């Protein structure tokens, strides 16, 4: 904060001088400002978009802290490529850093990264409109490669049939559990949500303090309500969404969560909160959560020892013939339309999403590229951290319910601001479903979406 203390006495400089000075300053500043607007060079149409004249020079890659390893490994294996690696927050928690920067670069006409990683999977929804993301299935990446991604993995990257980004990892939800603890308590892994709720009620009575899940994160709806086929976020067109939180699929799951929250077998802290880490880390019996919970939450954040955590398929509602699960994030890689090193950028993009050297051996999450995923699973078995094999993950990979989309508005942000404070105050989730729908509708509309029910 700058406080300008005005003088109490008069300050009369010679009028002419001052005017001249002012004019001089104004001209200087105007010149500087006008110099910012760069000219546009001639472009060539190739691979489905207008490409800038190609040049030599360093390839600029933006990654988050976790993907830094990937960029460094690429550099190590390709010493001939000049790489400029920039670390940023990866848009975690919907920070919108990338979008903010691209909007600014679009104004100044320069500065875009060549390849960028984002931990969010809704980037295509704005990056196409902003003229940033380059089409990938029009010549840059061959169909054979694209065909080997897991079924539906690149749906979030596809706008009007054109693929604008490549999925880094899948984040399908499974049921994580502590195998030795479950055995000690004499319970079995629930396969239906009904059994899951009964188990939660039993745990609350027989082993109070232990947890069968957590409903305190902003991505809670993407684990439970998405898996339950709640139609809160059905993207039906490029700018159209259908929102309905009143269906039975939504209320059934909300009621289940309310029961377990009330008897305290379900935490409302959020797995990354300081509170959870301090007070509940060793109380996890069961925990529905995305694929990356295994490494990022249990091993790295909660420091659960080896040979305890195992994965099972997420429960289903009794009598439901088509198994479904939710999904929490799963990063994407984008290539810039403005790149002047498209060949090098494409090489990097292909390597980082498909090469076993990174995806199978180093990646912390479940690779979206199916051949790499197979190798990754073998690697996880060999590492000996988990108490079971992770085959539940590969089954779940194709079961993510497709009617929950990735819009331009952040579902996580809406849940956090609308429902989370109410949960903290002791309101039931079922009672907040209408408010949640109302909030989604308002945010969707302010983002220019047509909303239906």
């Amino acid at each position, binding site marked *: *904060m*700058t*406080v*300008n*203390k*005005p*003088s*109490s*006495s008069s*300050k009369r*400089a*010679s009028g002419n*001088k*001052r005017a001249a*000075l*002012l004019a001089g*300053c*104004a001209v200087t*500043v105007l010149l500087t*400002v006008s110099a910012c607007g760069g000219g546009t060079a001639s472009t060539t149409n190739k691979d489905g978009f207008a490409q800038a004249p190609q040049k030599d020079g360093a390839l600029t890659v933006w990654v988050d802290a976790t993907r830094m390893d990937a960029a460094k490994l690429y550099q190590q294996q390709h010493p001939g490529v000049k790489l400029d690696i920039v670390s940023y927050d990866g848009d975690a*928690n*919907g*920070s*919108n850093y990338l*979008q*903010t920067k691209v*909007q600014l670069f679009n104004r100044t006409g320069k500065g875009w990264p060549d390849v960028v990683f984002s931990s969010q999977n809704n980037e295509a929804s*704005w990056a196409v*409109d*902003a003229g940033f993301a380059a089409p990938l299935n029009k010549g840059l990446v061959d169909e054979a490669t694209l065909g080997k991604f897991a079924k539906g993995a690149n749906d979030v990257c596809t706008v009007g049939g054109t693929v604008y980004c490549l999925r880094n990892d899948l984040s399908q939800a499974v049921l994580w559990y502590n195998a030795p603890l479950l055995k000690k308590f004499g319970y079995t892994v629930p396969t239906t949500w009904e059994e899951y709720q009964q188990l939660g009620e039993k745990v609350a009575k027989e082993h109070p303090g232990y947890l069968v899940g957590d409903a*305190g*994160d*902003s991505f809670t709806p993407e684990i439970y309500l998405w898996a339950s086929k709640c139609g809160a976020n059905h993207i039906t067109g490029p700018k159209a969404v259908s929102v309905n939180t009143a269906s039975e699929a939504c209320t059934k799951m909300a009621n289940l969560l309310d029961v377990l929250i009330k008897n305290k077998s379900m935490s*409302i*802290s*959020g797995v*990354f*909160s*300081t*509170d959870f880490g*301090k*007070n509940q880390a060793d109380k996890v019996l069961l925990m529905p959560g995305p694929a990356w919970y295994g490494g990022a939450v249990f091993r790295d954040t909660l420091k659960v020892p080896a040979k305890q955590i195992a994965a099972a398929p997420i429960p289903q509602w009794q009598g439901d013939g088509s198994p479904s699960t939710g999904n929490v994030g799963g990063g994407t890689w984008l290539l810039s339309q403005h790149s002047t090193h498209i060949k090098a950028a494409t090489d990097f993009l292909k390597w980082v999403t498909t090469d076993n050297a990174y995806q199978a051996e180093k990646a912390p999450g479940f690779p979206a590229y199916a051949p790499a995923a197979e190798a990754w699973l073998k690697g996880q078995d060999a590492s000996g951290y988990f108490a079971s094999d992770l085959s539940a993950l590969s089954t779940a990979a194709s079961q993510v319910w497709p009617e929950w989309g990735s819009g331009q508005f*952040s579902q*996580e*942000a809406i849940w*956090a*601001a609308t429902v*989370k*404070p109410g949960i*903290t*105050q002791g309101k039931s989730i079922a009672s907040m479903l209408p408010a949640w729908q109302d909030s989604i509708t*308002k945010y969707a*509309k*302010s*983002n*220019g979406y047509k909303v239906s029910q």
Partner: protein
Amino acid sequence: MTVVNSSVGSAGRRPRGTDRQSRAGIAFVAAYVLLLIAFGILPTGYAIYFAFTNAGGTFTGFSNFISTAQDFRFMDAVGHVALYLLFWLVSLVVFVVSLALLLHRLASGTVSKSLRFLFYIPGALAGAASVLVWLFMLDPTVSPVSSLLGTLGFHTFGEVIAPGNLPLLFTVIAFWTGAGGWIVVIYGALNNIPQDVMEAARIDGASAWQTAWRVQIPMLRKWIVYMVILAFAGGAQLFVEPQLLSLASTGVAGRDYSLNQLTYDFAFQLNNVNGAAAVSVELLVVSVAAAAVFVARSGFFDAD
């Protein structure tokens, strides 16, 4: 906080040096004017231009103002900022003036000096850093005052940042980071009250309370008005506190809380720079109008 003293107060006291002094004065003012133009006047003009045009640069009248005011978050944000301003300005005036008076009462040099230093320290931290300090203070699991938070009934971070608590929290944070500088400024103003006035009050048998209420505060009026004008303009632009809180709570509290956050959303999430400019122009108009009222009612520019 930076205090830029653009005073050329002593000009004219020494006739011989007048020329050189006025040249030095112009040089000082020129540097300020240059920065004012580059970072004040030009951006303001740019924003006004944006506010009345669309993305293509065509004049659109008030349509940006109307469309942003119709956003479902707009009235909420206006309410939040108004409530915050009320809390913040009242607490600022009451506590800053009373602490400065108290400080002035303390005759002992060392106590007064160390207290002044103590008051000023939080202000020396840069804005965002001092807000981060508070994010730790307010989280019962890591807070050094967690037992105090516990007795107040707060056991988790989520309970502390419940929506109803936010105006108070932001006021506390803003007061802690911003008030120290003002205490020092008002203290300096108190020292400028002529000794003979104070002595006359003492001889007439005025108590400490009477001296403060009838002599010191009326003579501080302009300083207080000055503080209120700047604090109003700063408070209306509330941004760092809710924005950081929103990041720290992963969006539970503080997202789209203030008007300035809304402009940020408009500009960078909805790609509506013109709408963002319209809201910022509204903020400017409100702040300038408030300043004009304060200046007119207090006789701010009257000669002593």
